[in-house]
């Protein structure tokens, strides 16, 4: 079985990064170049293997293509856990995304991280990160998915906290891990609910059992589904657990690219796509609303951010919201499609921003300027000519994310918006979903072009820097070029469609939506049918909102016809909220963490200062008191009063007797005789 390349190669893809992690973390210091070639080599190998798999998929061109293998991990007789891998088209596409972005990240990091004090560890952690993400992708059961899920959390913890000397980095890494754990709790509860009802962890038995409708249905299934979705909320940074992702920018920029594009945040969407059949309609509604709220909220925040990476971070959150919205409205293949296209252009955007920051850093270094923030867009401007490769690549990706035709983002976003619109057409009470969707799309176009204009166009804000800005080295530009070119529509509509307006291509052929396992749900065909009807309306609307967004950005930041300042002053309240990210962190801090910490301190105080000191030691004290009292009683009562009293009494009596008889020997003899008398009397009666 293992000889089958469709099993062997995914296993290699899974374990090669782990191997590289082990080698680099333990022996990296001793290897030449700190072992970065091990990491890069292994990851590129996995990418090639993934390409092979992808090719196989193309050759087969079979939507139901599927392979699997598993082994018994725990076997207690009745309680069994089999771990295994499941390889189908979805997996292969996802593997390709992960390995591609990961390879690019590795290569990009070669230059970006040069000279870092923990160079080898950085590459080791990247390996671990890729391994865990591949684990999620390949999992054929909930347990191994959950395990990889947690491992993704921990590797993100390690990578975000790579520069742990900075408190902000350390805080961000902790925040990321803990926020994820909140989601993981829900995930685990969902797993337990499903297992206790179904008795299996593997996906297929679970789907079958749900389709049977006997083991689990109704509210329980909704709760289980929402529990599992909670994992995705944490990992894909959905409202209300979205707070960790922008902070995660504290990590090195390539890590942000990896995390935002292919691993980590994609995991949540991937899981929703993978497990789509278990979600009940009511669970899907909740999912859709969470996605929509996330999309609009993050877009609103992104509008006012000045940190280049923060803008990108919130744009990621917003795009993830789109994907989740798509899952919620049932067009989950569109979500996956967006995941794919988004991975490409978002990774590229991060690399480009990394490239900008990198050169800013060097320029600032040369100018001996250590106060200027190299990530603040207000310090940039006019880089267009200095960094042409970066500029054009970033522009392409920006056009993609804004949803402009000819670019990949248009196809996927259009599919999502169409699905949302059709959903609202059939459920008019949920009209807010498409409204939020289109508004977020407009805002996306706006803030992305704001970023482009502020960074690359116009006049340089700080002249001394601009002259030192240079294009980045080849290790950095080559991934940028590669990923930038992948933002064109053509790569997704192969092999038989060259219409930039139509999303039909290999993707739609091979990734076919499956019916929900929940009895009574809409079938995938029905959903597709509805979406098809809404398609042209959605396309038109999305074109309009994208152009409005771009136009606004152009007017405000290029032509400066509309003063951004005036608007921000006019809408001071909203601007304030947006700039401060709707005060989520502050409110969480005030109403969640602090009370929680206070609770912990109170409990600890209760435990140690009260319970132990007064209750347990109280027992001791009580015993001590009792013994003191009984000691007192013993001493002054029994000893002094009784025993000594007896002594005193006999002393007195003796004295009395002595007075009469002077205590002579014969006196005692008399007593002896009297005593014998008494004994005889006692004996007699």
């Amino acid at each position: 079985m293992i000889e089958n390349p469709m099993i062997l190669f995914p296993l290699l893809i899974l374990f090669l990064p782990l191997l590289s992690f082990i080698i680099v973390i333990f022996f990296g210091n001793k290897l030449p170049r700190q072992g970065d070639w091990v990491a890069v080599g292994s990851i590129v190998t996995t990418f090639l293997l993934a390409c092979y798999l992808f090719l196989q998929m193309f050759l087969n061109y079979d939507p139901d293509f599927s392979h699997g293998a598993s082994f018994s991990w725990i076997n207690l007789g009745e309680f069994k856990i089999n771990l295994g891998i499941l390889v189908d088209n979805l997996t292969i596409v996802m593997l390709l995304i992960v390995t591609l972005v990961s390879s690019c990240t590795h290569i990009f990091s070669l230059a970006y991280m040069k000279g870092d004090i923990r160079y080898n560890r950085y590459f080791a952690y990247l390996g671990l990160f890729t391994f865990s993400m591949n684990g999620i992708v390949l999992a054929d059961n909930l347990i191994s998915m959950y395990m990889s899920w947690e491992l993704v959390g921990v590797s993100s913890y390690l990578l975000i906290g790579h520069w742990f000397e900075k408190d902000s980095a350390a805080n961000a890494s902790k925040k990321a891990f803990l926020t994820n754990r909140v989601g993981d709790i829900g995930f685990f509860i969902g797993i337990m609910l499903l297992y206790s009802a179904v008795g299996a962890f593997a996906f297929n038995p679970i789907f079958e059992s749900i389709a049977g409708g006997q083991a689990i249905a109704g509210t329980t299934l909704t709760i289980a589904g929402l529990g599992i979705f909670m994992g995705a909320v944490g990992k894909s940074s959905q409202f209300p657990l979205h707070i960790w992702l922008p902070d995660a920018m504290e990590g090195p920029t390539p890590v942000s690219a990896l995390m935002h594009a292919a691993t980590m945040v994609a995991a949540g969407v991937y899981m929703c796509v993978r497990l789509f059949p278990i979600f009940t309609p009511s669970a899907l509604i909740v999912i859709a609303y969470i996605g929509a709220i996330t999309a609009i909220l993050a877009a609103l925040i992104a509008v006012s951010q000045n940190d280049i990476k923060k803008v990108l971070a919130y744009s990621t959150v917003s795009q993830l919201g789109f994907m989740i919205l798509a899952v919620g409205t049932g067009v989950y293949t569109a979500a996956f499609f967006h995941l794919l296209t988004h991975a490409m252009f978002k990774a590229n955007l991060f690399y480009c921003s990394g490239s900008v920051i990198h050169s800013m850093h060097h320029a600032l270094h040369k100018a001996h300027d250590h106060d200027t923030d190299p990530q603040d867009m207000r310090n940039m401007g006019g880089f267009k000519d200095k960094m042409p490769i970066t500029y054009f690549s970033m522009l392409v990706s920006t056009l993609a994310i804004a949803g402009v035709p000819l670019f990949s983002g248009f196809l996927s976003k259009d599919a999502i918006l169409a699905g949302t619109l059709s959903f609202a057409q059939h459920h008019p009470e949920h009209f807010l979903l498409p409204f939020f969707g289109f508004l977020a799309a407009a805002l996306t176009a706006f803030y992305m072009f704001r970023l482009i204009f502020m960074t690359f166009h116009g006049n340089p804000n700080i002249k001394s820097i601009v002259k030192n800005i240079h294009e980045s080295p080849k290790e950095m530009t080559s991934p940028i070029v590669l990923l930038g070119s992948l933002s064109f529509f053509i790569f997704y509509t192969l092999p038989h469609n060259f219409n930039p307006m139509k999303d039909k291509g290999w993707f739609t052929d091979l990734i076919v939506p499956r019916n929900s396992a929940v009895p009574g749900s809409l079938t995938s065909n029905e959903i597709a049918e509805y979406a098809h009807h809404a398609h042209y309306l959605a396309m038109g609307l999305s074109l309009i909102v994208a152009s409005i967004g771009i136009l606004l950005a152009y007017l405000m930041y290029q032509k400066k016809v509309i003063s951004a300042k005036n608007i921000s002053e006019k809408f001071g309240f909203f601007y304030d909220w947006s700039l401060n990210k709707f005060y989520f962190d502050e409110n969480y801090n005030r109403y969640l963490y602090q009370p929680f910490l206070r609770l912990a301190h109170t409990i600890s105080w209760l435990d140690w200062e009260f319970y132990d000191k007064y209750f347990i030691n109280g027992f001791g004290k009580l015993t001590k008191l009792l013994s003191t009292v009984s000691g007192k009683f013993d001493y002054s009562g029994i000893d002094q009063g009784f025993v000594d009293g007896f002594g005193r009494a006999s002393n007195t009596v003796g004295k009395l007797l002595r007075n009469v008889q002077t205590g002579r020997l014969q006196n005692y003899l008399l007593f002896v005789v009297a005593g014998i008398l008494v004994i005889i009397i006692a004996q007699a009666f």
Partner: protein
Amino acid sequence: MENILSLLIWIPILGAIIVACLPRDNENLVRYISAAITGLEFIVAIVLWRAFDPVNGSMQFMERYEWIPSLNISYILGVDGLSLPMVLLTAMLFFIGVFVSWNIKKAVKGYFALYLLLNAGVLGVFLSLDFFLFYIFWEVMLLPMYFLIGMWGGPQREYAAIKFFLYTLFGSVLMLIGILGLYFTCGKTFDILLIMERAPEALNGVLWWGMSAAKVIWVLLFIGFAIKVPVFPFHTWLPLAHVEAPTAISVLLAGILLKLGVYGIIRVNYGIMPDQVYWFAAGLAFLGLVNVIWGGLCALAQTDLKKLVAYSSINHMGYSLIGIAAVVAAGEMNGSDLKAAQAGLSGAVFQMFNHGTISAMLFILVGVVYERAHHRDIDGFGGLASQMPIYTGITALAFFAGLGLPGFSGFVSEAMCFIGAFPVFKAIVVLSTIGILLNAAYFLWAFQRVFFGELNEKYKDMKEINGLELFTVIPLAIITLFFGIYPGPYLDLIKATMDQIIEKIAFAASYGVM
């Protein structure tokens, strides 16, 4: 081979005598001899493990001699899948502990003599199948512990030692009453196996002061064991004792002595009164929940690193309690869910072992930094990661193992406990999953405060963890990782015995008096 269990118990006693006879001045000789004795002990334990038949769920290598025939007291030893891993863990941790206590300077001879005596006591408790013997070893364990904490401990050692002693003594007195209750109701025998056979009939319907005798005995024994676990209202000896004890003794306290509680509950309470399990399981699960939450919250608020680890022990033993409560799923009224029962019980027993290795690792690591900085204040460090990268790496590993990260054994056992208990105690399990978050919170927060940030100027000359210390931690780390990735070998070892216990409890549901 027939007397291998006696060998296990008597080697350390003999060793203690040998150590006591060594010259006082030659401290290194004492250390080497102690290491040799515990090493021999470890080898014997491994031989036992290799000879053990995992398919057979009942007692093996039984030894039975008359001791005090007039009171029906015998010397009975035996080992099964429940005690074997604990014996292995004990032998291993005591061996490692010698090296952890290598730097003890004060009265070395006395320390190691008591240490070996403690070893004998612990093994005796795990191996003895006669209540009288069991109780004797239980008390034998107490005495060296008292002195080890009281003489070699931290600043508050006397207070801690006396508190530990009184707490445990209180428990053992209740336990003794319970044991005597069984002795007189089950035909005047101390033989545990015999009592197991007789107890369900002998205790059926017996009333003491208007209460069911079985329930009274259950509660008495439970409190005795609960203090060792420690279960929530009886837990306050633990942070103090752990904090004040020398490193090696904290390791043993957390690694082995806490396990005696759960071991006792499974062996004695479950084994002898399987019908009462149904009555008490919900309470047990609830206490587990309280342990998890309370321990976690307390750990979160600690500023003393060792105290944090101590509270984390309370937190972790809570999972074990939830796991052992899960066996009731096997009962008819709970749908004879053998899956859950197996997952829960095996998970709990696995958790005992895992917590043994993980907490041992944590305490050793805290000891390492304490030895260098002479304080354990979490906020008093900072930035150690850049100064001691290897130490940081290993501590990170231990912390991640402690917070139940997949890939480490703790995750497998905790997940099994939860999955097992979920069908019966849904609400409790859902609430206790908050513990997962708390685990992560207190470990990561402490990790950040100790290791992250700018390096504290005071510690820029801090020495990296040395070879001896690495030698004590690495084996534990490897075990933790191995069982995290492939728990099969451990679970196969205990499977047959667990099945027997579950079967018994499932059967008890049919006649259970509730």
